[in-house]
């Protein structure tokens, strides 16, 4: 009987840790997960632990990963979980995404912010600084998206110095005015920091 590990709905790095634990006891297991990063991480772990892998994608969006190895081999492999343990933080440093063409950059940043709503999991915090703060004030074209993100319990920090520099502090329409202490410590404490 192959042991089955159901790791659906578990946040990283839980699926990897459960897989590792199971592989310490069994030579053949099947892991069920519901996202591709978990598949990738388990694949990496399995390879490190000397397993052969087979992945099946199911119609309901879950993945079955079959891991097996020759009895007694590779059990002592070190675990190097690649997932960071802190929260996901997104820092928006400009009202453009990428450098080169401003018109295009403005299209891209709006698309990015709209797409942020569908990220799984959502970021814990989104930080706006430099010209990025212009996206958080009255008449910003992404205000509706940012308000939805905020309603989803994502904290939005907006650099007060930057709002002041552009003379738009009174127009702030989403998030809270923040300072460099909070911004620096949030960025430094992030497990992953995404800067589009």
């Amino acid at each position, binding site marked *: 009987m192959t042991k089955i590990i159901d790791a659906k709905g578990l946040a990283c790095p839980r699926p990897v840790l459960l897989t590792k634990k199971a592989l310490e006891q069994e030579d053949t297991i099947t892991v069920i997960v519901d996202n591709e990063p978990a598949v990738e991480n388990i694949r990496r772990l399995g390879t490190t632990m000397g397993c052969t892998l087979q992945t099946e994608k199911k119609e309901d969006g879950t993945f079955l990963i079959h891991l097996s190895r020759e009895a007694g081999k590779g059990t002592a492999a070190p675990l190097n979980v690649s997932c960071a343990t802190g929260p996901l933080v997104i820092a928006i440093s400009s009202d453009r995404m990428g450098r080169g063409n401003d*018109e*295009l950059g403005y*299209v891209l940043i*709006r*698309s990015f912010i*709209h*797409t942020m709503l569908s990220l799984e999991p959502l970021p814990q915090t989104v930080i706006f600084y430099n010209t990025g703060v212009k996206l958080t004030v009255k008449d910003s*074209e992404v205000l*509706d998206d940012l308000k939805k993100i905020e309603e989803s319990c994502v904290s939005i920090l907006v650099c007060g110095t930057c709002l002041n520099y552009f003379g738009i502090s009174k127009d702030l329409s989403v998030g809270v005015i923040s300072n460099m202490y909070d911004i620096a410590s949030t960025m430094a404490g992030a497990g992953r920091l995404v800067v589009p």
Partner: protein
Amino acid sequence: MTDTEEYHVILFDSVHYALRSEKILKEMGISHKLIPVPRHISSDCGICIRFTVDLRNRIEEALAGKVDIREIRPL
């Protein structure tokens, strides 16, 4: 706008057409939103214009003869 409203999207063959349409609609004060083409419609890295169904006629009139539209379809 709320999630309960029904949306349609306009797809274009070029990002430039999407931007030109956005400019025209902004000038005319017609409510709309530039969004990435949803994954279930196309895997292209494209952008499209989303609008509420009730504006469809106004939008089609506003863009007629000015921009090439590939398709207008429900979101």
